[in-house]
């Protein structure tokens, strides 16, 4: 944004990479896949780069309202300074806090999750999915809580997946009934409390039981949890998990 601002330009979208998108090795691949798609579609976008900082979502959800508001107010100052109107992101948690919580503090933006963006590009005919080696493969989609239940985005990710020609199946608990991957509310960063089982194992077992060879999701936390789950169940040979952006990029040979 800074470079563009120096040239007096304002891009259509700010692409919010997110901390996981920038630092988590697995999710960096998703970020790369998604910017390749943006490039392919010749989208006018920019990132904040080193000016980006935590959205504060984790701080807020673990009770540190002070830290959340500090992050939020700093981010808003930067984004408003650049005249940001639309934000694209692969992170449902950033999506949720920007869309529903930043307005209270003076940050009002139009939020687009990458699955919504891909859906829109496909329906507008700008993105045409060619047949690929994904065609006919059995795939199951895991709804991220902060995209689905929190913000009602259930069908767009599914429509994008369907455009890939995969054989899509559902888990018994899907859409608003979906079971959390276990990472929300700060759980990603701490040991789980004592119990009979880890939530990510419960969810991965449900996904594996569908017989799918691909598990798709659209959230950095879900990605980590499902990857761990597949490892834990020793199913790394037969089952792979991807973000929807990666599957689209794969189909396009990007």
């Amino acid at each position, binding site marked *: *944004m*800074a470079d*563009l601002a120096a040239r007096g330009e304002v*891009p259509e979208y700010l692409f919010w*990479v997110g901390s996981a*998108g*920038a*630092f*988590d090795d697995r999710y960096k691949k998703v*970020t*790369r896949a998604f*910017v*390749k798609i943006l490039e392919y579609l010749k989208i006018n976008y*920019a*990132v*904040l*780069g*080193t000016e*980006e*900082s*935590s959205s504060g979502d*984790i*701080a807020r*959800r*673990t*009770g540190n*309202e*002070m*830290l959340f*508001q*500090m*992050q939020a*107010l*700093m981010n808003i100052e930067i984004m408003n300074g650049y005249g940001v109107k639309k934000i694209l992101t692969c992170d449902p948690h950033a999506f*949720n806090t920007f869309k529903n*919580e930043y307005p209270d*503090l003076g940050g009002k933006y139009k939020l687009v999750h990458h699955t919504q963006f891909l859906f829109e590009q496909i329906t507008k005919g700008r993105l045409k999915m060619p047949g690929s080696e994904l065609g006919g493969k059995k795939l199951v989609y895991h709804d991220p*809580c*902060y995209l689905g*239940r*929190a*913000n009602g985005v259930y069908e767009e990710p599914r429509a994008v997946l369907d455009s890939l020609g995969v054989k899509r199946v559902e888990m018994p608990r899907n859409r608003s*009934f979906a*079971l*959390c991957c*276990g990472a*929300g*509310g*700060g*759980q990603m*960063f*701490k*040991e789980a*409390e*004592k*119990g009979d*089982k*880890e*939530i990510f194992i*419960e969810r991965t077992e449900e996904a594996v039981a569908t017989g799918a060879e691909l598990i798709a999701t659209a959230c950095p936390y879900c990605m980590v949890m499902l990857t761990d789950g597949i490892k834990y169940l020793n199913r790394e040979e037969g089952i792979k998990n991807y973000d929807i952006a990666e599957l689209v990029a794969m189909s396009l040979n990007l």
Partner: protein
Amino acid sequence: MIKQIAFTITLLLTIAVFSYTLRGLIKKFKLTRPKTIGSPGKRLLITLKVALLQQTIFRKPVIGLMHALVFWGFLMILFGSAEMIVDGLSGTERAFSKLGVFYNIIIAAGDVFALLILVIIVAFIFRRVFMHIRRFEGIEMKKWSHTDANIALTLILLLMVSLLGMNSFYLLGAHDIKGIYPASGIISGWFSGMNPENIHLMHELNWWVHIVLIFVFANYLPYSKHFHVFLSVPNVYLSKLGALARIDTMEDITREVKLMLDPQAALPDTVGDEPIERFGLKDVEDVNWVNYFNSLSCTQCGRCTAVCPANITGKKLSPRKLMMNLRSRMDEKAPGLINEGADYNDNKSLLRDYISEEEIWACTLCNACANECPINIDQPALIIQMRRYLVMEESAAPAELNAIFSNIENNGAPWQFSQDDRMNWTEGLTMNVEK
């Protein structure tokens, strides 16, 4: 005339007991924190969909339909109950029958629903007593919870039996029948041989049993989990609006943070004139009145707990327990707070003595509980508020989270990576990502 006097006394007694209960409740609400409730239009629409049309309860279609039929039936029968009060006070018989066709429809519906509710309640009792329903169990479900449920169901059962009895003997005894009674029409056939005197007696008996049971029921409810019958509709009106995962902003903190970021900023003195008592929620006086209303409306159906990922995987957290604990703790602490004022301290608190830190930290904030609640109770709100207390008043977050906080403070990410490395993901890309 004697009947009128007897009825008036019974009614006054009922109102007196109810007023006493209500006074106690208002005192408890006065201990809670304020919260503004706007957007009446939106709220009425939600109430129409979720309460009157029973939208959420149909997520379990079979049992949901059964509940919806009981609810809709109650609404129809309520009309007849109001008529009974008018009849009782003024000595009339079927006073509302002047309404003509409308009367016939409502009374006929009420009569059919009475039979339907009776059958459904028998099924509900059977389910509770003989079937093992997982969501009716849990650490928070004590013997009293089950007894309470069975008492309420039995009262409803008796209400329906007496209503059908009243209607049936009315059909047999009245000279000029007002209203239509499809279900009682069949039942009355069984008693057609009875002599007129007994028919009259049975009608009176059922009439009195029905109205007295209504009065008893009304005064029992506020002390029962079935307070739900009165409070669930208004509770839906008090639903959280907007996205399910939205968390309210603490405005008193915004002021502090703004001053921290820019000490020279001149901020209007809109908030913060009163000293902030405590951040977050430690005990009942920290909850707002909607939180408390939620706890009184909860009927312990356990749909929230049944979908909670933490609970499913054997953790101690149960969203239903939070509501039950809040209600019990208020009952325990309110008398002291009312008599001795805000400084009253019994060396106990909602957090820790009722709800453990372990429960609070087990939540993934997936919002499945709030999404599942048929009357839109906001369980995560309590969790967030308790976490706020632990973090901001006591710095008592789990150690891993404290590390995350300092990472975010120092380098703007939960991980210990420098903010300068935020573009490292572009390595290996052939294209140029615009900054």
